[in-house]
């Protein structure tokens, strides 16, 4: 039997976890690489499913470049990655759906959005809807998995966390709040196996009508002063930034001042 290294995971049987991986794009050089968020998802998967409980799948074009990028996932200590072969411009969701139905994992992990193509982040939503599974976005940490539910920490903006109990099977997306992925080792990356699978192809007809271009720089928003007279325009241009009529408490006791401050803090809901 496999070693139970991870104390978080309870239950007698090991959890079957799948991770959807894609080929990323380095933001500066533009070279193919492992996608940042997908690698974080794999990292979480590795901490949950020790010793072969983690299955990786990639759906897309098979070229030497994408293979090199996918080998970076193998270098994280994974024996094999399933490559569902799909041509460019195909809708990969049906292929992934049938692969998932066949495998039947309890948990599917993936990055919040891809780094190439449309990168709309819709794949996990479509899969969860079609499979009828629960969906959680922005996972920070999996606390425990048992039987038919798991407890996770969800990342909120401003560094906050929320604890959720999610019914399994579930699709979970991972973004920058999760723990960074481990380095990819060269030897295991060479030794690992890329299993090519064939699947029926669904062309993405809608996307054929789109026009794509390298990202244009977005125009900076200008401060527009709508004034009817030159005097108003001058006043707006010369005005100092001010809060605009704040309340000033002068000559009050420390106690009264503290009460006023606490009232505002409670109104804003920052005091817990």
């Amino acid at each position, binding site marked *: 039997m496999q070693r139970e290294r991870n104390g978080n995971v309870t239950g007698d049987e090991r959890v079957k976890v799948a991770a959807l991986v894609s080929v990323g794009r380095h933001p500066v050089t533009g070279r193919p690489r492992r996608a940042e968020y997908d690698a974080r998802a794999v990292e979480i998967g590795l901490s949950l499913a020790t010793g072969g409980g983690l299955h990786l799948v990639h759906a897309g074009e098979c070229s030497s470049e994408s293979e090199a990028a996918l080998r970076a996932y193998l270098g994280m200590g994974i024996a094999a990655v399933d490559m569902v072969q799909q041509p460019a411009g195909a809708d990969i969701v049906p292929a992934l759906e049938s692969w998932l139905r066949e495998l039947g994992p309890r948990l599917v992990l993936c990055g919040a959005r891809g780094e*190439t193509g449309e990168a709309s982040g*819709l794949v996990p939503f479509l899969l969860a809807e079609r499979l009828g599974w629960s969906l*959680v976005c922005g996972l920070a940490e999996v606390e425990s998995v048992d039987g038919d539910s798991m407890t996770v920490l969800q990342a909120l903006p*401003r560094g906050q966390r929320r604890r959720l109990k999610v019914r399994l099977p579930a699709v979970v997306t991972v973004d920058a709040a999760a723990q960074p992925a481990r380095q990819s080792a060269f030897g295991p990356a060479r030794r690992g196996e890329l299993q090519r699978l064939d699947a029926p192809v669904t062309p993405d007809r809608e996307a054929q009508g789109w026009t794509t271009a390298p990202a244009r720089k977005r125009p900076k928003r200008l401060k*527009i002063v709508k004034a009817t007279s030159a005097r108003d325009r001058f006043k707006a241009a010369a005005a100092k930034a001010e809060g605009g009529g704040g309340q*000033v408490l002068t000559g009050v006791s420390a106690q009264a001042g503290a009460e006023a401050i606490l009232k*505002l803090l409670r109104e804003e809901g920052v005091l*817990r």
Partner: protein
Amino acid sequence: MNDIIRRDPRTEWIARNRLHPEHDAVLARMGGSAPAAQWMGPNGIIRRNPHAVGFIGPNGIRRIDRSGAQTANAGGSARRDAAVAPTRRQIRIETPAFYVAVVADMPGGRLSAHDRDVLGLARQLADGASDGQGAVLLVSFGESREEGLGDAGVDRVVSFTGERFEGYVPEQRVTALGGVERQHEPRHWLFPDSSLGGAELGRRLAVRLGERPATQVWQIAIGECTGRGAAGSMDISRRLPRIVLALPECAEPVSDTTHAAESIAPPAALPQALRRIEDLGAVAVDPSSVALAEAEFILSAGNGIRDWDGFHRAASVLGATEGASRVAVDNGFMPRHRQVGATGTWVTARVYLAVGISGAIQHLQGIQQCDKVIAINTDPGCDMVKRADLAVIADSSEVLAAVVELVEGVRKEQRNAA
């Protein structure tokens, strides 16, 4: 009284015309209580008061009538007040041809800047249609504390309140949006593509309705939209779909009209959503581990702090992230990575509590994006007090001690009650 100023052009004309037979009588009538612009001094010299010459025109600018007849008229000040407050056009749409639905994030019950931009975009879509005037329908969840919904361009509001929609309940919310879809059949659904919930809710609804949304949209032209793809390195232009997830600054917020923001009843009898996710509540996060740039509540110290132990204690009791002005950092009381301002971190806190900071311009630049600023300072004339929404003019260490005492008192009561 009616505050419309009635002008009599004929008397004004007579007052300007010194040769008119009624000139003197009209001048006597118009004179009123205005100060005399010129008079005979005791030594027989004509004295003039230059300040009393002319009158304040409708734009608030002094106008001088060279005939010397028309001096300051009484209506001037009233007109000036009207000119200062810019008036927005009131718009009320009785029977809209269609709806454009916007689901706002409304963090803390108020519209965020991103929400306002998306509402501006919705306004463009509602007003720019060739087949009639559309209305913007705002869908909000939870208690709303926003008063300026009309100014943001909202015609109708559907708000879902109650325990069912509190916390993290995306499934319930999507069911509610499905109810709105059935009742009003909006032509477009707009969401802010933000991590506060809009991104997730929009994608969930799109999948539920079986529509393909346009994500990360930053520009909309006639029937076309442009959005970012491939991790922001590509622009994708396509036909405008029904569901749009828009980036910040996708459009200008509404600025010259006020809309009705009428509340309409939410759809009755929503189907019960399957609850597969249970919210177990927020987890206490160590505030010192939160990055200063994204902290929600910052307690910031400046040169006016004498009692540093009291300051740190207040920060831990209030659960605030600590910040500092440059002086406090330079003097070695706080680490460099806690510095707020132009040379330090530009913060985005919702509440910024500045203790003993006078508000150098570099510091004020750093807190430009904060919603509420509270200042505790001994100097009532300093710039931070002018910027602050609430300023307490008192000794900082005493006020902080009182705050700590009050908070701890309340916590103790709660513990005893539990």
